[in-house]
């Protein structure tokens, strides 16, 4: 009999063999592995998952979850394509762009943020409270988000060339020192840093000015969806439970992760509490955490349509949430 394996298959089989040999008998039957790629370094944005891992909600659901941290240079969709994670938290504009332009086989099965936390942050002493205020100002934007900002400007009848857009390297110092007038960042996070530096911040969400998209959409490949559907439902259920528990008191959990999940990130626990509190209204939905409603999907697609990204309803799969 001839058996041909390529290098990857061989390694995979070898690894599986080793793993099976090591695993205790009872675990082998009960749990299956699932890996998730987060969108950023460990911070309060992912409190729910840390809580669920620490309290064993995933294990209870029969999942052995491995959690991969992200960062500014980690593109979660790339991790999915490379087969290094089963599900990823992504930004829906890049995901739908990948489906439309690259033919990536993605499905969106949930959305962590019902309202995208991305907003325009400025100093209270030189406040920018609406898109019109940006005309003639310097705005720092991470290169990935430039199309989103330009779309928001167009929706508000502003010529994008009237705003001086420069790259944002995630350091608010130039904003605090007045070198730039505003930056695009998570409104749940930066205002705290600015306050620490002795300034007051003001901000508005892109969402509130027409760019109505989700964020941290939960994305899987069609292959994983077919193979691991039950595990994905279990993941959604356990994660929703954990997030609900977290939001009963947003100040309670971050301190518990000081020496584990948040160790060595260079961020303070007070910062995480601020973040966790601020994100509560952006995540909660009458239909539960991760909700994908027809109305929400429609808003998301129509906003993306304004930047020339024509998405379709079938890029979303709401049936997993329906099973919870």
């Amino acid at each position, binding site marked *: 009999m001839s058996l041909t394996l390529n290098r990857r298959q061989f390694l995979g089989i070898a690894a599986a063999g080793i793993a099976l040999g090591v695993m205790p008998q009872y675990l082998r039957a009960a749990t299956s592995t699932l890996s998730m790629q987060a969108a950023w370094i460990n911070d309060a944005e992912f409190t729910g998952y840390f809580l669920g891992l620490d309290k064993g909600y995933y294990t209870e659901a029969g999942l052995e979850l491995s959690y991969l941290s992200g960062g500014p240079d980690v593109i979660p969709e790339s991790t999915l394509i*490379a087969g290094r994670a089963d599900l990823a938290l992504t930004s829906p504009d890049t995901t739908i762009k990948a489906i439309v332009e690259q033919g990536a086989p993605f499905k969106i099965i949930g959305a962590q943020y019902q309202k995208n936390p991305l907003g325009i942050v400025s100093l209270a002493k030189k406040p920018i409270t609406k898109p019109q205020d940006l005309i003639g100002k310097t705005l720092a934007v991470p290169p990935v988000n430039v199309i989103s900002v330009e779309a928001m400007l167009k929706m508000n009848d502003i010529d994008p060339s009237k705003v001086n857009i420069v790259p944002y*390297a995630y350091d608010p110092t130039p904003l605090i*020192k007045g070198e730039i007038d505003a930056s695009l960042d998570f409104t749940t996070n930066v205002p705290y840093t600015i306050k620490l530096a002795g300034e007051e911040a003001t901000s508005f969400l892109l969402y509130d000015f027409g760019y109505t998209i989700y964020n941290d959409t939960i994305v899987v490949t069609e292959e994983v969806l077919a193979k691991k559907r039950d595990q994905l439902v279990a993941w959604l259920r356990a994660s929703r439970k954990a997030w609900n528990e977290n939001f009963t008191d947003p100040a309670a959990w971050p301190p518990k992760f000081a020496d584990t999940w948040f160790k060595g990130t260079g961020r303070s626990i007070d910062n995480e509490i601020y973040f966790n509190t601020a994100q509560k209204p952006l995540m909660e939905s009458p239909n539960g955490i991760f909700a994908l409603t027809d109305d929400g999907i429609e808003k998301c697609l129509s906003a993306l349509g304004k930047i020339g990204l024509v998405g379709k309803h079938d890029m979303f799969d709401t049936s997993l949430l329906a099973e919870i």
Partner: protein
Amino acid sequence: MVGEALARHRGLRNALLLVLIWEVIGRLGLVAGGALPPPSAILIKLWQDRADYPLHIAATLQASVTGFVIGNIIAISAGVIFALSPTLLRIFRGVNIAAFALPPIAIAPILTLTLSGMAPRITLAALGVYFVSMTATVIGISQADSRAADLIRAYGGGRWQVLRRVQFRGALPAILAGLRVAAPAAVLGAILAEFGGGGRWGLGTYLLGSLGQANPARLWGIGLVATLIAGLSYAGFALLSRHFLGSTRAVTLNTAVPTAQEQSSSSLRRVLIITASIALPFIIWWGFIKLSGAPAMIAKTPLDVVNYLFFSNASATAQSKLLQALGQTLPITFIGMAAGLLFAFLLAILSKLFPRGIEAFMPVALVTQTMPLVALTPLLVLMLGRGQALTLWVTISVTFFPAFVTLAQGIALVPNSVQELPRAYGASRWTEMRMVTIPAALPYLFAAMRLTVPRALLGVMIAEWLATGKGLGNLLNQSRGYLDYGMIWTVAAVAVLLSVIFYQLVVLLERRVLTRLGMTTAE
């Protein structure tokens, strides 16, 4: 002896003075509205953060040590093979130049796409090591004492005996010297890959987490720790080689891709070798993709890139984006090359004329080499804005140091007897410099140019990526966000190709000028 001790004290005193000035400037917030923290604040922050550091340092060390070992095994073996077979050396010339000229900023995203876990960090560290160690080995082996080799042969020793008993032993000082320079390069490579790796630990990761904190003192602290690790690894190998060899040879980065002696060979053979040397980098690229097993959507082969750029639906937009980016990047790259070289040249001349002043400047210069530029961006942006001035400064800071070391060495090597002639005629130091020293150091000027020219593109791309939002650097960054994999590979390939072309142009110019003046290339 007394004079030497005094001189050392004076150097220390100058350095202390500099730190003191920095402290005052920082305390009073004179630079960039207080964005430059005083040294005391950096140290205090470092102490407050001390619990954070060990795990990050351990991760960075693990990747850089592994990369260092793997890189050196490959580099030294390759060096031995190249030294034995000049034909192979000529065939691999394209690969070697590409390895030298690779801008890490272009290659890091590709490594993180195709490899996983620690592999991108280790690969980038190993790439940082390869060229330096390989060159040191080739030169060490080919320069071994031929009389000793003759002796072995006279006693009936074969090729292997000569290699083992003479050449390898003779090459050891050169190899150790190479390792000294390679060690900090491995550390820097590992940190750079951490930016894109998405791991939990590592100094690069820590720096990223701290960026959003608007806390310059912490960023400088991380930069100083990185500098310290790089410096210690250099010092460690310096001590090792002194301990084993008692040798105190001056070490500089060797910038010449070793050229095999042109043997009188048929022109057909020469054409074949040149073709092979151009094709080989592409074959290695293709092999890397096939071996990594990365899916075709992410990993693009040379053919895929050509396809993307010329024959796909997206090729028209891709071409116009690329041309626009090149139009923004290239002019400032040429200006940057000239500025970096000029700065290094002035510094080298000053170091001859005012050795003490330059000695005090050296620690600052070293910090600029190991301090991750991301940490300095806010400071630079506040001081210089986001225009051409910033791009130029970043380019100078990326290019000047190796060029300066090479030039200073060249100027120091000019024989005393030659310099005494103008002195005897009562010429001033400047006249002596102008009429004797600088012309005599011309081969080193070209060696410095070879070093500067590929790095200038790297400097410009870093500035574009971090601050100005234009050109190739920005296109690369944006394509990553848009999952435009074809464009990521295209930009990386174009950046490497340009660097190789720049390098090759300098080599051609160098050969013409030096042959005309009857000088030889500086190794």
